[in-house]
C-alpha cells in the first residue's frame, strides 16, 4: 500500500514537472509573437533557454567579447560601429560594461573557435558572435558556458543548447519578401533571385522561403540565381553578367538585403527599364525610390545591421542582469514598411551610390514592450540596478 502510494506520488510529481517543462519556452510567449517561429529553420533551437535562472561569474561592469567572423563589407562595419561607437559609451556611462574586446576571424571556423576560447580565458563575461557556422562553434560555446560565460549569436543562430540567439525568421522573411515582389508585378513574370553567400546558413534559409513563394504563383518563373555575397560591388558584377548574357525579360529581382544598391546600378547600366527590386535597408536604392516614387510600393527590414547588433547586445546585457531569457532564440518577423515611410528619413540630396543603411531603430526593432515578452524578469537594461 505504502509502495503504491509512493509510486503514485512519484508519477504525479513527474507528470507535473513534465507539464511544467512543456509550459516553458515558446508556450510562455504571446500567440502573436510565437507566430514568428512558424516555418523556422529545422536546425534553429527554440526550446527553453539554459539561462532562465543563470547568474554571471562577476558583477558589473562586465567585459564583453565580440568574436566577429568577418569585417569586409558595409553591413559588418555598420554593426561594429553601432557596438563600439554608440552602445559601448552608453553602457559604460551606466556602469554596466567596462570594455568590448573585438576579434575577427575572416570566416575561418578554426580561428573563431580559438578566439572564443581565448576570450573566455581572458576573463570576458559574455561573447557576442554573428552569422557564424551554426554547428562548428558548439563545443566552444559549451566551453564558454562551463566557465560561466554566455555566448549570444545575433543575426544568425548556433545550435548549441548553451547558446542564445536573436534573428529574424529568415525562411519566413524570404517568403514574405518574394511574395510581396511577385504581387507587386501582378503575380506573374520572370524573376531573378540574388542570394547572399552560397553555403551561408541565413542565405540558404532566405532562398528556401523565396522559392516557396515563387512556387505558390503559377505564372511566376525563377529564370536565374546569382550570389552577391551581401556586398554591393559583388552583386553589381554578378547581376551585370547575368543581364548581359540573358536577353529574356526580367520582371522583378528578388534580393536579399545589403546588396540592392549594387543590383540597381547593374540594371541601370544594362539600359533596361528598372524593374521592381526587393528593398531591404540599403540607402542607395532607397534614394532611387525617393526620386522615383512609382518604382515600388513597399520595402522590408530583415537584418538592419545596427539594430540587429543592438538587439543582441541588449539581450546579452539583460541575460547578464539575470532577467532570464525564456527561449533559446529570440525570433522576430520581418518588418514591412510602405515606400513613403521607408524613404522619409532620406535627405533631399540623397545619393543612389550611398552605402549607408536605413534602419527602423531599436524602438521599432526591439522595443522594451517586445523584449518584455522574451524575458522572465524584464526591465530596461539601462534602468536595472544590482539585486533587482
Amino acid at each position, binding site marked *: 500500500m505504502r509502495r503504491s502510494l509512493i509510486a503514485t506520488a512519484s508519477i504525479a510529481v513527474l507528470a507535473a514537472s513534465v507539464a511544467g517543462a512543456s509550459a516553458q519556452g515558446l508556450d510562455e510567449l504571446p500567440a502573436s509573437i510565437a507566430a514568428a517561429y512558424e516555418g523556422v529553420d529545422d536546425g534553429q533551437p527554440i526550446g527553453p533557454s539554459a539561462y532562465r535562472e543563470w547568474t554571471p561569474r562577476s558583477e558589473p561592469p562586465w567585459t564583453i567579447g565580440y568574436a566577429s567572423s568577418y569585417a569586409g563589407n558595409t553591413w559588418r562595419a555598420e554593426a561594429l560601429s553601432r557596438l563600439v561607437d554608440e552602445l559601448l559609451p552608453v553602457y559604460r556611462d551606466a556602469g554596466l560594461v567596462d570594455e568590448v574586446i573585438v576579434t575577427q576571424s*575572416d570566416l575561418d*571556423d*578554426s*580561428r573563431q*573557435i580559438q578566439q572564443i576560447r581565448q576570450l573566455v580565458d581572458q576573463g570576458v563575461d559574455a561573447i557576442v558572435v554573428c552569422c557564424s557556422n551554426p554547428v*562548428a562553434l558548439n*563545443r566552444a560555446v559549451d*566551453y564558454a558556458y562551463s566557465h560561466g560565460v554566455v555566448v549570444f549569436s545575433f543575426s544568425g543562430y548556433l545550435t548549441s543548447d548553451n547558446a542564445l540567439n536573436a534573428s529574424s525568421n529568415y525562411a519566413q522573411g524570404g517568403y514574405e519578401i518574394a511574395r510581396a515582389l511577385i504581387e507587386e508585378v501582378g503575380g506573374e513574370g520572370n524573376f531573378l533571385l540574388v542570394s547572399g553567400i552560397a*553555403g*551561408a546558413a541565413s542565405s540558404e534559409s532566405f532562398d528556401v522561403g523565396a522559392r516557396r513563394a515563387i512556387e505558390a504563383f503559377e505564372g511566376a518563373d525563377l529564370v536565374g540565381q546569382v550570389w552577391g555575397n551581401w556586398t554591393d560591388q559583388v552583386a553589381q558584377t554578378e547581376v551585370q553578367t547575368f543581364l548581359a548574357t540573358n536577353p529574356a525579360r526580367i520582371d522583378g529581382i528578388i534580393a536579399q538585403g545589403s546588396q540592392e544598391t549594387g543590383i540597381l546600378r547593374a540594371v541601370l547600366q544594362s539600359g533596361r527599364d528598372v524593374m521592381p527590386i526587393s528593398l531591404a535597408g540599403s540607402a542607395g536604392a532607397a534614394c532611387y525610390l525617393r526620386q522615383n516614387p512609382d518604382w515600388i510600393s513597399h520595402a522590408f527590414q530583415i537584418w538592419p545591421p545596427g539594430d540587429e547588433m543592438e538587439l543582441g547586445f541588449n539581450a546579452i546585457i539583460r541575460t547578464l542582469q539575470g532577467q532570464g531569457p525564456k527561449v533559446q532564440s529570440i525570433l522576430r518577423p520581418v518588418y514591412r514598411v510602405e515606400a513613403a515611410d521607408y524613404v522619409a528619413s532620406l535627405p533631399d540630396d540623397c545619393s543612389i551610390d550611398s552605402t549607408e543603411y536605413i534602419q527602423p531603430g531599436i524602438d521599432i526593432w526591439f522595443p522594451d514592450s517586445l523584449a518584455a515578452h522574451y524575458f522572465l524578469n524584464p526591465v530596461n537594461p539601462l534602468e536595472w540596478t544590482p539585486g533587482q
Partner: protein
Amino acid sequence: MLGRVARRLGPLAVPLVLTVILLVLALIRSPQTFTYVGLAGAVLVAAPLILSAVAITPIAIAGRGGVDLSIGPLVGFVNVTIVVWLPAMGLASPVAVFGYAILMACLWQLVLACLILYVRISPIIASLAGYMILSGINLVILPRPGGFAPDWLADWGWGTELRGPVLYILVGSFLLWFLFRRSPIFQHIRLMGADERTAYASGVDIVGARMAAHLAAGVFAGLAAVCLTGQIGSGNPLIGDTLTLQAVTALVLGGTSLAGGRGGITGSVLGAVAMYLVFVVLSSFNFGNVSGFMTQLCYGLILVGSLLLSLATTARSRGAARPA
C-alpha cells in the same frame, strides 16, 4: 656566431626565430594559452592547419612548382562527406571514418598525379581546377554548414584534454613522416624535385616518385580532415577557401622551396604553429572597430616580413655554399 647558427639552420632559421618571438609574445599577452587546457585547445585548433601544411609539403618537394591549391577543398570534401555520406551508409566507427578519409584523400591525390603525369597539365593548374571542382561539389553535397560528426569524433571538439586523439594523430603523423623520409622513394622525390630530367636520366622512377608524393599528401590530408571534423563537429562546405591559403602560407613560411627539391615538414609545422601564434597574439589586442583591418594588416605585414627574411637567408646561405 649568430650567422653561423642561422647558416646551419638554413631555411628553418626564419620560421624558428619567428615562432620563438611569437611564443614569447603569446606568453606575455595571452598566458592562458600555456595552461594545460589552453594547450589542449591550441592542439585542437592548430592540428588541421598543421596537417594540411604537412600534406602539401611532399608535393612541393616533388617540383614543377607543385603547390596543391586543392588541399583546402579536399579537406572540406572529406569533412562534408564524413557527415553526409558515412551516416547514410551506416558507417560511424573510427576504423570506417579514418579508413574512408585517408582512402578518399589518396584517391583524389592519385587523380591529380595522373593529370600531371599523363595529361601533362602543370601541377598548379591541375590543383587550381581541383580547387574549383571540389568547392562546387562540396556545396552540392552540403549546401550549407551543418550535419553532425559521429559522437566519438565530435567529442574531440571539447579540447580540454591535451593527451587526446588529436595529439596522438599529430605525433603519429610526425613518426610516419620520419619513416617516409628515410625511405628510398623520398630521396627519389627530392631528386626529381631538384631536377626532373637529371633524375630521370639517373634512373629514378619519375612516375612512382610523383605518385608516392601525392599518396603521402593524401594520407596527411585525410588525417587533417578527420581532425577538422572533430574540431567543428559538423560539416562546412566553405572551409576549404581559407585553409588552402593558410596551408600554402605555412609551407612557404617554413622554407620549403616551391621550385622543388628542398624542404621538409619541420618547416611546414613551424610555419603553421607561427601562423596560429599570430592569431593568438593579434586576438589578445583590442583594436576596437578597426579590428578587422588591423588584424589583416598586422597578419600580412608579419608574413611578408618573414618571407623576405626567409628569402634573404636562403640567398645568403646559397651564396656561402657556392665555391669561390
